[in-house]
């Protein structure tokens, strides 16, 4: 992946599994199809003549805008997944994400309080997992989704070992 302007120079990013796109697609489908169905109800009622209040243009516009937004998000998913990257440096872990709203985060190993590995149903069927790092700060929202299970386990062990070696108090 190409390096963006806010990334530290000379970092070789590791990418998450491309299969994570599937997980995101399922999440997208569940969220947006439900939302669209609910928002389309007024349109159906108006068309059936049960409801008088929302004028037809409004009843059409709202779900249409939602549909466009949902499709836009759908188109973005593969790029967003490609934009997730991480890099293990000697003393800290770098995590980046985002295309429009980019975020590059550095978590020192010595600051990690604990490491979570979470697996959802869709992820499990694809052999993926999500790694979460926790520091003493609630602001550290460091998540690495879509790691292959073996890589997730390796990373967890690696991070725990390095964290222990560089352990600092608060």
């Amino acid at each position: 992946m190409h390096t963006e302007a806010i990334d530290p120079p000379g970092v070789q990013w590791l990418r998450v599994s491309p299969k994570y796109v599937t997980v995101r697609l399922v999440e997208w489908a569940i969220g947006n199809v439900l939302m669209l169905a609910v928002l389309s109800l007024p349109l159906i009622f108006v068309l059936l003549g049960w409801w008088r209040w929302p004028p037809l243009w409004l009843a059409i516009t709202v779900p249409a805008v939602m549909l466009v937004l949902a499709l836009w998000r759908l188109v973005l998913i593969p790029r967003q997944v490609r934009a997730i990257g991480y890099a293990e440096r000697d003393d800290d872990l770098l995590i980046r994400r985002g295309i429009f709203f980019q975020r590059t985060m550095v978590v020192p190993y010595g600051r990690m309080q604990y490491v979570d590995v979470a697996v959802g149903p869709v992820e499990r069927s694809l052999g993926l997992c999500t790694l979460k790092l926790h520091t003493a700060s609630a602001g550290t929202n460091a998540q690495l989704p879509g790691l292959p299970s073996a890589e997730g386990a390796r990373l967890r062990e690696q991070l725990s070992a390095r964290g222990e070696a560089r352990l600092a108090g608060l």
Partner: protein
Amino acid sequence: MSLENSATESLPGKPEPSVDGGWNRVHPASPFVRGWVALAAVGFFFGRDAFERMLQGRDVLDPNLSGRVPWLLAGGAVVLLLTVGGFILSWYFTRYQVAEGYVRVNTGFLFKQQRQARLDRVQAIDIVQPLLARIFGLAELKFEVADAGESAVRLAYLPLDQAKQLRATILARAAGVVSGPETAEEIPEAPEHVVLSVPPSRLIGSLLLSEQTIGILAGAAVVVVVSVFTQNQTLFLALIPGILGIGAAYWNSFNKGYNFTAAISPDGIRLRYGLLDTQAQTLPPGRIQALMVTQPPLWRIFGWYRMHVNVAGYGVSGSTEGSARTMLLPVGMKSDVLRMMSLVLPDPGVEDPERVFTAGLEGLGPVGADPAHGDGFITTPRRARLLAPLGWRRNGFFATETALLIRSGRWWHTLVMVPHQRTQSMALHQGPWARRFGVADLVLHTTAGPVSPRVFQAGVEQAVELFDQQAARAREARKRQTSEQWLAQVAPQAPEVAAAMPEPPTQPEPPAQPTQNQTSQQEDRHDG
């Protein structure tokens, strides 16, 4: 569910009575003092009810009450008996012990809880005296560890002298000055040196000129205008509860900020304040995770500032108590601020700290094209001035050897300081607009509290450079310093002294030149 041991951490297989010698109980009167507080709360509610009835021109008492008086009395008596019984039981089963590097507290008689906390994990110790406890000469001791929730250990209530003694013991042991199994009696309170105090007149002035007052004046203006237009006089009556509430808020701030005194001792920074309820906080060295100096617009007339801190144990509780505890200075002049900064950061890591801090407090970047060399602060580049039309010359950062200074706010002057070794993690953020103007935000993550450090709209190249350097600096600073057992490293001979001569108290440090002490202490630290 088992009745035994619902504790988070239990004693490893230790039968309780065998170590009974070291176990203490809190003062027998303490449940009643707490109970009286509850009773006073009930009285307050009834009183307020009656007061509001009086205001509305009705009878003080509810007219339907008289027929039910005996039943009410009987019910009240039963409740009272149960409460008193519960008080006595809870007092009997609450015991504490400070030994072997731990403080242990056992509570509860149906659902027992045994809790132990490591002394060297202390983040802060508070001694609180609510009004009634103060009348009886009692005090509550709060021991904070880094879980950002409620206090890890609360001992309510102890006689004041005993509470102070216990605080000295805990701090001396946590600092690593005293080790070994001797009893608590021989550890003296660390000597302290008063650094500043806030005169009441300035406190009142600061309250009158605070943001709260601006809001109230604006609200009052709206009410007056509305009532003039609608010619509705009763609107003012509806305001009475609001006025009472505002008065209570002012009173609260005054009560909490009254007689504010800051002192330095080898145990750390001591803060004492309170008019009716008094509170004494001790923040051991290196426990302050981040610091913020703010100046509301109206305070600029008198050059006042206030300071807040993030301390891991205090958390972010929205209550007035929580906000008072994270207050390092309710109102002070610039010299006070600089003095407090020097206590929090004994080694500023820069040649001319006063100039740098002044630039951080009130400086503005140059209008010229080169943002890098005005007053040392690197401000938002000129190309992004449309993004921050007011703040672009003000938003800036400055990295010293030991801390990162972040300033922002053209009207609400703000200066945030994060010591390098306290940085948890960092993130660079850049949205589409920021990318268009070639700027990025750097967010530093710290423990929960009122301070959330963020460098606004720094130029991309400077932000990336800072991001990289800051990671390295934080790494170096962490290697240099550990915050636990803060005096053990500076006085390694102390345990031997204590062991050889148990009789004379081990004086941790002479009181003179406290700031100097702290500085040498940081420099002398061995690698962790």
